């Protein structure tokens, strides 16, 4: 397996792919196992050339297959002709699962970021593979020097707005930083400013507590109306940065990745958040311990290298 060659490609063209950066992390994971010389990375537009040039053993499309330009018949045909395994690792399930129709007949392997979506693929080789974190991008030394009490970064989806609306009076007494896009002016601590990836990771590391609130925004999820179950990549990225995360429970799958109370703090209501604030904000040592344990778990189990190992195990046994 050491000598296998992997061609990693975007599942859609980069100019419209807001998650193109994640592909670099995946590449890093494969390079850690196979070595730089056996891992190739091309944009969607150049996959056919990449296949002909590098003659890999596996072509792995990573990303979203939703854009109208994402079409894979020609690539799949070329892979068949050259006896190359064709895999997809989709990172936007279940929000775009209706578009998976494009790949089901073409893929040898499908990896989906969302565990709850797996049964809805009528394909023999579908596997759950959550996203992960990159040590080179997301690791931060744990420090007790913090800049704010609560931090959240993300788009203001309705569920997130509802959560902060329920908490607005309570949170106003603290140093709170909520950033991202489309936040209403009624939330005094929210700012509509997008953070660069590096900046965001720094904020995780410099905040006492980081909210982890799921996404509720479907683009092509009308066929089965699925609800996501697997936490998104920011869960792993924040943990890699040593953040202490407050995870609003809409799925208990989080417990498969992090130990509640030891590595992550689960909440079901604003009341739970208040209890956490009372217990932890004046206890930097407990915060440091939880953050360090989450970081260690991430380093041990949730790097992209671990995900690459799963893929290789599935594909080559």
């Amino acid at each position, binding site marked *: 397996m050491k000598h296998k060659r992997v061609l990693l490609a975007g599942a859609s063209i980069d100019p419209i792919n807001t998650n193109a950066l994640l592909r670099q992390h995946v590449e890093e994971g494969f390079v850690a196992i196979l070595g730089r010389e056996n891992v190739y990375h091309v944009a969607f537009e150049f996959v056919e050339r990449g296949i002909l040039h590098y003659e890999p053993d596996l072509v792995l499309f990573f990303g979203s297959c939703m854009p109208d330009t994402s079409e894979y018949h020609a690539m799949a045909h070329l892979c068949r002709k050259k006896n190359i395994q064709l895999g997809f690792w989709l990172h936007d399930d279940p929000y775009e699962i209706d578009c998976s129709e494009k790949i089901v007949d073409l893929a040898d392997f499908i990896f989906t970021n969302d565990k709850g979506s797996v*049964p809805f693929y009528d394909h023999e080789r579908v596997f759950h593979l959550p996203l992960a974190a990159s040590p080179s991008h997301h690791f931060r030394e744990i420090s007790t020097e913090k800049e704010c009490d609560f931090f959240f970064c993300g788009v203001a989806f309705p569920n997130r707005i509802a959560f902060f609306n329920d908490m607005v009076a309570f949170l106003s007494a603290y140093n709170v930083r909520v950033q991202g896009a489309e936040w209403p002016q009624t939330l005094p601590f929210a700012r509509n400013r997008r953070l660069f990836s590096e900046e965001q990771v720094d904020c995780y590391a410099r905040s006492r507590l980081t909210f982890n609130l799921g996404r509720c925004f479907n683009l092509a999820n009308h066929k089965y109306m699925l*609800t996501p179950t697997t936490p998104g990549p920011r869960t792993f990225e924040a943990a890699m940065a040593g953040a202490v995360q407050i995870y609003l429970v809409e799925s*208990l799958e989080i417990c498969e990745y992090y130990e509640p109370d030891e590595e992550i703090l689960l909440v079901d209501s604003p009341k739970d958040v208040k209890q956490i604030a009372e217990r932890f904000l004046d206890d930097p040592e407990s915060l440091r311990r939880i953050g360090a344990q989450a970081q260690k778990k991430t380093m041990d189990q949730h790097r992209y290298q671990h995900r690459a190992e799963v893929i290789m195990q599935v594909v080559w046994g």
Partner: protein
Amino acid sequence: MESRSIHDMAAAPCTGHIIRKGHIVERKCNWRILFLDTKIGNPNHYLAVAIVQALRLHHDVEMVINANYGNAVSSAQRNQCNLFFAFDGEGLDRYVCSKLAEICGSSIVWNVEDPYEIRGNVANMDLFDLVFTNDAGSVQDYRERGRHLPLAASVNQHFREIPPKYRYDLFFAGVPWPNRVELLQRIISDIRDLKVKLALPTNEHLPLLNIDLPPSTYEWRTSNGEFCNFSNQSRINLLLHRKFTVSGGRPEALTPGPRLFEVALAGGFQLADEGIPGLNSIYDEGVDYAAFSDAQDCVDKIRYYLKHEDRRMEMLRSARKKTKQAHLYSNRVDDILSEVSSLHKAASVCVNSSRPKRMLMVCHNIAGRIPYGGVETYMDMCLPFIRDEFDCFFYVSASNTTYNTDYLLLDANYKELKRVSTLTTGGWPCQYLLSCPQKEQAFAAVLSEYHIDLVHFNHLLGHVPSLIYIAKACGIPTLLSVHDYYPLTHHFNLVGPDGVYSDQLLSGNHNLDIHLRETEEIQAGSQAIRKAFWSAALSHVDVIHVNSAYTRDVLLEYYPHLEGHVVQRGIPVRPMAVAGREDGASSEMLRILVLGNVTRIKGGEVMFKIFKYASPDKFEFHVYGQVSKDYMDAVKTMPHVQCHGAFSNADLRNITRDMDVSLHLSVWPETYCMTLSEVWQAGVIPVVTALGALKERVIHQSNGFLVEPNDVGGVLDVLDEIYSSPELLKRMRENITPSMYEGLDDHVDWLLTLYKNMTKQVWGSTSNETAAFSLAKCGRVIQHPVWAKFAPDSHYLMLLKFYKATTLKKRVIYYLLAANRLRRRAGNWKFFMMSVREILVRLGVVK
């Protein structure tokens, strides 16, 4: 309509043995099941997944196809399925289901939304041999076909180990029907000290929730898998029933829903409303679950069972044991297949019909409707032979405008049977559209109402390419003839409005983008969208017919995955008896034939110069076809050029009889060129452009002459050479053989054989249901139906706004904006005039 006769019938499939887990198990039947969830957008599809899993593990089941509306009929035909299993019942498409019932022979439905959807379900019961219903109270509605079958649980999906510790005291997830909300409102204040998890996702039919909790704690949804995790992690799970319907059915089921079984298998202890009908017939109160009578009793029981873990454990273990024994989907599947087998219904294994098969030609135009060309002539030529064996129909644009909204269904004599009017998505012309729901539905309706068995797409100009998906969804095989490059680009002869052809146009990612940008202001990336859609659509075409190796190579270079779909066969010519020509030139003058229209695309510029510079003393040109207005005035003054106007095929013999040489100087890579075959047949020696199929078919100085595109001098050199050596013609004529062109008889034999093979497996349906398909219903999701992205200030968008404007003032404004934009784009007035003309035609100002 003739009735269908099934020639070959067999008894229900019952033979064989299978080996499972080391034991030989008798296989009583070999069910080949076509499974279809009838409801699009079904949040309960996980039930379907569980049933499919159970079916696939059943020893009497050979195969299960988990289909959708886009592939169900074709899959059932291809796999010769013998049982149609419809699931859910809601949203059922009668056309698809009636066809599946016919194809499979046996058909069942498991309705899981009774009694709430009972009205619709009863209306559809005629399609099925047996109707299984989740609700005991609905069985009698289905009379002798009705069977009660409660939902169940799946080990794969729902089983959980009993946890060492619990996260919640109480859990309830479900739609907040009014009766449920009433109870929750009454108990919530009494259990504030408990760790409660509620999920109450509401919908537009329900009144606003009024529960004394922060909304973020209960306004969320959970997946079925996570529902089981929450049930498993909670000491007590509330089981509340539903009393509500918006579909005109009865508001309360007499059998509990699936969550009863799912929670039991997930190891959850259940505290149920004792009023839930049917609960006691499945589980025993006090043994498998506890029950409460009212809100106060509910609170009391919650507190009691939180204190008595041993009692909870006893009951949840008992419920789980019973579920594993009797309430899994494997049990239900056993019951279903046992019932179906007892019908002893014959299953069809060969699908034939005594009526002639019906084929539909899809094209932009037909022969005789000017302007028409080679494609229409081809169809017209084959028609007399095809209609001897097939009932033929045509589906063509009603007008020649690109804003085509009307289509004509014609019979084999081109007589109008039906006129179909459709809206066009966003007012866009068809050439920029990938999909248009109105056109798709109109096409589906034609296919179903006229019981079409085969679709031959001859051209999709004026249509939308998504029609390919519609034919497939109807289970109709498709043949697509590639007569030009329309499947690759809407500039179907690879020449844009600027009249320039480049052989680099299709290479790389940028050339076509640049071309579209410069000719039509279409933004970069648009062609990639078109290519992606066509690429996928073409993979659904059963057979792609190309006329030449050149066309095949270009097509496969662009869409390599179509390799296995493509067949090559030329376009035929009508046989023409020509007297043997012994001599060289026919007279002292060399008589040169131009067969077809003299337009820019056909080499009009080159020909005009040839006419101009060729010696009138040696050469005589005879043009049969329309001469473009660009050249007509000048050509009229040339005594050695005779313009004879349009010709009919019947005139060909006379036209070609005295001709020596013909010119075929297209500036685009022709895909075949029928006139080349026609002149060869008459012994005329062609001079052709060394491009496309012309280059492929003509061997230089053997059966014709090749010249480079736009090489006026090259053509004149060739003509001089022939003039000076008349014996050259005689020698070359000897090289012309019938193998160089496609004969009509051979072609029709090939075509009819192809049609017959393609329709061999097609079910000659007698269903009178009308198909209602759109691309989305076929399961194909696209973000935008228009592939062409125009710059916001492009003249084209201004013209579109002009067209759609409702007031004269707005029209004037948009017209001026478009004109101004074009004024700044020097050299494109012609395209501007074309666009304006389209609009005027659309408005009915000009024809």
